[in-house]
């Protein structure tokens, strides 16, 4: 029976092969028109809101990495609202959607922990290659610009030249850096940095950790050890644990946020590389499912390319305002 099935499928398949491939190419090139254009297209229409418009909107949200669950919820709520409030045209629908997405993000924006005894300790965590080192450097400059004193701790002792990379950033932002050698114990580097920061009455200590996949248990346990090390010297530390996430991240971002939160107690997200074409829709799914706020966004490789998160601007960029 299986043989028959295989055989018959094979025959049907052969002549279509090329056709299918060409269609795929075509299909994918369609996405090149940006999401913005697509939403504009849907929303600029001043016809009555119908199911087709909502469905198109659903596609657009999926295309910006909101994920199936979040998209479905958002679209269902939008449909209900549209009915109740008798939405007439695309512009109104767009306003409604913008408000809805903004509300999801704003709900999580609670003020960060107040710092009783300094220094404020900020742990930068995340998977490999999301921009932790770059963000650490930019954050040092950010706090300095606010009139605070900052210090960097090079606790990525694993990746080749990570320490050297952070050293360059320390120089650029004009802050001191505490480091150990490559292959050293990150908790030891952290301990030294905490003591130095205390002794020098530093306001903010930024700790750059090694990139690690959230599925690697032993590496995740190392983060827990670092937390405990920090707590020994400063009871409330770490005050913030920022999960640095690449804006191109797809649905795996949820799992990243989930596991980093359970191991390292993430308190917020930094969304990096937003200067590309990806708009970081996964942040909305993360806010919704895991109640994590976005704290900062990275928009380039320069020192000043870091901004505090602005939900309005973020949603506008997502929807192509």
């Amino acid at each position: 029976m299986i043989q028959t099935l295989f055989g018959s499928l094979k025959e049907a398949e052969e002549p279509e092969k090329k056709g299918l491939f060409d269609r795929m190419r075509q299909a994918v090139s369609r996405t090149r028109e940006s999401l913005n254009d697509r939403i504009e297209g849907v929303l600029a229409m001043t016809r009555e809101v119908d199911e087709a418009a909502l469905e198109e909107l659903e596609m657009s949200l999926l295309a910006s990495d909101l994920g199936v669950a979040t998209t479905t919820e958002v679209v269902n709520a939008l449909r209900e609202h549209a009915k109740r409030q008798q939405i007439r045209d695309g512009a109104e629908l767009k306003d409604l959607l913008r408000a809805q997405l903004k509300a999801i993000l704003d709900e999580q924006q609670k003020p960060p922990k107040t710092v009783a005894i300094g220094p404020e300790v900020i742990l930068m965590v995340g998977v490999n290659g999301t921009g932790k080192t770059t963000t650490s450097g930019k954050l040092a400059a950010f706090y300095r610009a606010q009139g605070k004193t900052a210090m960097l701790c090079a606790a990525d002792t694993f990746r080749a030249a990570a320490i050297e990379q952070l050293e360059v950033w320390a120089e650029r932002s004009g802050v001191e850096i505490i480091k150990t050698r490559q292959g050293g114990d990150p908790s030891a580097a952290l301990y030294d940095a905490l003591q130095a920061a205390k002794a020098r009455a530093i306001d903010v200590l930024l700790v750059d950790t090694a990139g690690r996949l959230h599925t690697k248990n032993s590496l995740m346990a190392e983060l827990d050890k670092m937390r405990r090390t920090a707590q020994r010297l400063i009871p409330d530390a770490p005050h913030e644990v920022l999960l640095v996430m690449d804006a191109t991240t797809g649905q795996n971002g949820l799992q990243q946020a989930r596991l980093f939160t359970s191991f390292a107690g993430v308190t917020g997200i930094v969304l990096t590389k937003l200067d590309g074409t990806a708009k970081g829709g996964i942040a909305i799914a993360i806010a919704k499912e895991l109640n994590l706020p976005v704290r900062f966004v990275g928009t380039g490789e320069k020192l000043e390319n870091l901004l505090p998160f602005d939900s309005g601007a973020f949603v506008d960029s997502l929807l192509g305002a």
Partner: protein
Amino acid sequence: MFENLSDKLQRAFKSLRGQGTITEENIGEALREIRVALLEADVNLNVVKDLIDHIRARAVGQEVMTALSPTEQVIKIVRDELIALLGKDTARFKFASQPPTVILMAGLQGSGKTTTSGKLAAWLQKGGHRPMLVSVDVYRPAAREQLKIVAKSIKANLYEGDLKGETAGTALVERLAKEARREAIITGCDTLIVDTAGRLHIDEDLMDEMQRLKALLNPQEILFIADAMTGQDAVRSADEFHKRFSLTGIVLTKMDGDARGGAALSIRHVTGQPVKFIGMGEKPDAFEPFHPDRIVSRILGMGDIMTLIEKAEEKLDRKKSEDFAKKALSGDGFSLEDFRDQLRQIKKLGSLQSIMKMLPSVGPFQGIQQMADQVDESQFTRVEAIINSMTKKERANHEIISGSRRKRIANGSGTSVQEVNQLLRQYAQMRKMFKSAGKGGMLQRKLMGSLGGMKGMGR
């Protein structure tokens, strides 16, 4: 979090029992489930749309087989479709007739170009080649230093070059590339791997620079290094890189995580170029040729038993496992010491979650993938800690562990007496179960039987 596709389909097809053919109506729900599975795996939206149309066209009108359940029948079609799109075979690597073969590594920031450059060099060395590495990333701080350290760790040739205080820019990049090729020829290296700076596909200046680098070096391979965790935007960057530079292949990195890797499908389709390698970790040898059929199982959330078997063969101590089985099934039963050995062995394979996700969700493993997300990994460590806190004598003979001993063990392992009790209870049960199975051979028969049932699902 993800329900396995075959389970979802099973539900969707409940209504199909007793019906003769798959029709437009009764396949609707199944197609919706397939669509969600593909989208959750980050396959591009438009690729999903077309795939679904195609699957529908092939499935509708088919007779419901008796040998295969409708679920299996449809999954077979989905698998075939995905494999056909990814290409059936593992792709080959192109070498120049006149050495050196030049390989240009391209991609966005943080995709893993430098790490992959090192791995590729190690892979070539293993195949008897003499690669030379050069980094022309003059922009990111310490990028060139990073490649230097990587090269040293694998004992590969590196052209370091001298920046001579020149400002970072295309002129410097071109000079380094030119010098490196000359150096490769002089020192008899047959391949030159050029690690470039990460760049956004919309960064005109840097994209121009890459174009000039291509014109200068005339590379045999231009590899696009892509992060397996990339979402829907993957098509946009890959498409732009391909349009500009005519890529020859893709390397999918960070595949040792739990990302489904749907981006592989998307990128393959927008460029038409094959995925040639996958990166499986940070070590230089964590680098493998790409097998399309394996990632298809992963995208569909249907386990990756092949990878699991390979991993097990590589990491597990076969003799220890066999000894354990013999002991467990015999009259004496296994001790807590043996149990700890087994725990440690399993740990070598990676997190329990990742192991469970590699199992197919049929036969004896039914439902195990859904459980994976609920697994508390720390439980594992606690169990080991409890056993560690026992004396050798206690480990060999659990029956002597009295109330006061339990208290001591709980204190020593930082757990509670309840947890120690629970472990001992579970251990006693397991021990008994294995022993009785050893007598009747019941468990073995049962296992063999269900494994036999799995064969149809293979590939």
